[in-house]
């Protein structure tokens, strides 16, 4: 096989390059803050004639999603990108997109929400949108952003799925950090991603009504149908992932295990912070400590079975959230979900949450070493004192910066 091109791309550029190769018909996006480089590059591609797409610069993110919904309902391949407050402003339309079962793909550069005003990285935005009915994929680096943006279109448009997909990468840490990205040829992308084949496109010759009233006599049936489709999509996602791995020499999973052989305690991470955490795991392993790591790629649908399998046999799991779910019982949404998923498991591990790196607070290897120390202590005592502890925060009750 011919060696593939390696381009120097940051996470945003990797997303834009992948989207260009996926040939969307419509890109609708709000062009200024909190927008990222993604749509800037895409508008360059369109202006330079490298991408034959309708680029709609709308007046708000609510309109961006609305335009994507309209385009997708017509049968177009529609794409948008946003971050933080932009995603928050889209909230209403996110539900509409997923309920209409429209295969829209959206990149989100994960950033904190105001207030205080903060443009840096955490996952308050997409974690807050976890119940909107979108598939959510979280990426660790530019290479993953590139690979999963392409897969996102394939997953979304698969007739067994037909759901919108959020492809998430950490703001700045990934979105603005340049890395080498091995890109596929246009031909390879074309062979993996055929043109969209819409099921019920809006067509005057064959009219359909989308978004009609759902009276109480019908609403639950329509919503449960959506829930079943979302849950079942995990099988299709796994299948598409396998095909991508085999075709292009990758080795992705929906839950990825790192040095878990013989591990007694493990970190469970999501997004770019996984890289830093792996360094800490390596250091601990070098000292002979039984530590491993699990990286969650898919948050929606939540990979319950894969996670139960990966976590069984462990004594303690430290779940590293990137946001706070205020007033919840477990600190962050990931911790809540993991604990809920393990509840009915015999010999389940202790699970402690570590909301970490809020609003761009730098989290380094030594933070993870402290977390792992805590996990080893819980393993030794076979008891958990607290459900969660915020990491990277000054003051009592927290693990300091």
């Amino acid at each position, binding site marked *: 096989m011919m060696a593939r091109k390696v381009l120097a791309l940051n996470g945003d550029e990797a997303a834009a390059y992948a989207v260009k190769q996926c040939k969307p018909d419509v890109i609708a996006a709000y062009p200024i803050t909190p927008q990222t480089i993604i749509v800037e590059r895409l508008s360059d591609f369109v202006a330079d004639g490298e991408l034959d797409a309708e680029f709609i610069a709308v007046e708000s993110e609510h309109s961006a999603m609305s335009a994507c919904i309209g385009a997708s309902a017509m049968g177009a391949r529609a794409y948008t990108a946003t971050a933080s407050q932009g995603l928050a402003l889209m909230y209403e339309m996110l539900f509409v997109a997923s309920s209409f079962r429209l295969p829209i793909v959206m990149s989100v550069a994960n950033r904190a929400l105001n207030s205080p005003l903060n443009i840096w990285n955490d996952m308050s935005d997409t974690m807050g949108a976890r119940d909107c009915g979108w598939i959510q994929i979280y990426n660790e680096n530019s290479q993953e952003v590139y690979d999963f943006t392409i897969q996102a279109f394939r997953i979304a448009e698969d007739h067994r799925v037909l759901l919108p997909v959020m492809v998430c990468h950490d703001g700045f840490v990934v979105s603005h950090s340049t890395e080498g990205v091995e890109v596929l040829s246009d031909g390879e992308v074309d062979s993996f991603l055929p043109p969209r084949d819409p099921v*019920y496109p809006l067509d005057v010759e064959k009219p*359909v*009504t*989308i978004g*009609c009233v759902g009276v109480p*006599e*019908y609403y639950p049936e*329509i919503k449960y*149908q959506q829930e*079943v489709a979302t849950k079942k999509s995990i099988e299709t996602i796994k299948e598409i992932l396998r095909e991508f791995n085999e075709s292009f020499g990758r080795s992705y999973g929906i839950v990825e295990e790192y040095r878990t052989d013989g591990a007694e305690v493990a970190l469970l991470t999501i997004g770019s912070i996984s890289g830093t955490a792996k360094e800490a795991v390596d250091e601990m392993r070098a000292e002979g400590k039984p530590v491993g790591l699990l990286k969650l790629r898919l948050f929606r649908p939540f990979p319950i079975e894969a996670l139960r399998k990966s976590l069984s046999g462990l004594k303690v799991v430290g779940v590293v959230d990137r946001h706070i779910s205020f007033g919840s019982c477990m600190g962050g949404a990931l911790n809540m979900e993991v604990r809920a998923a393990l509840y009915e498991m015999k010999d389940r591990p202790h699970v402690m949450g570590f909301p970490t790196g809020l609003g761009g607070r730098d989290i380094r290897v030594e933070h993870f070493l402290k977390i792992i120390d805590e996990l080893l202590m819980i393993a030794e005592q076979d008891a958990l004192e607290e459900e969660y502890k915020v990491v990277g925060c000054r003051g009592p009750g927290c693990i300091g910066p």
Partner: protein
Amino acid sequence: MLETWEEVTFAGYILEPGNAESYKTGDWRSRQKPVINQEKCTFCLLCWIYCPDGAIIRKEGEVEIDYYHCKGCGICAYECPSGAIRMRSEMEGE
């Protein structure tokens, strides 16, 4: 029998255009319904124009109420200049 979640259309799409006609809005009519006195009716068709639900059926020389769709709002009776339409309680019978 109403459809199960497996039987309802994909995402609740309506695949058959114009099927609102088969939706029986008359079954949630307010407790009164319009009744026409054909002897008083002058076939001026104001009721036919004003009815918001298209529930007045225009026939040869006379009008008829479509009770399958009529919600009993009373606009036809209010607009009728010759007092040919009267709202009557559902309990009274025809």
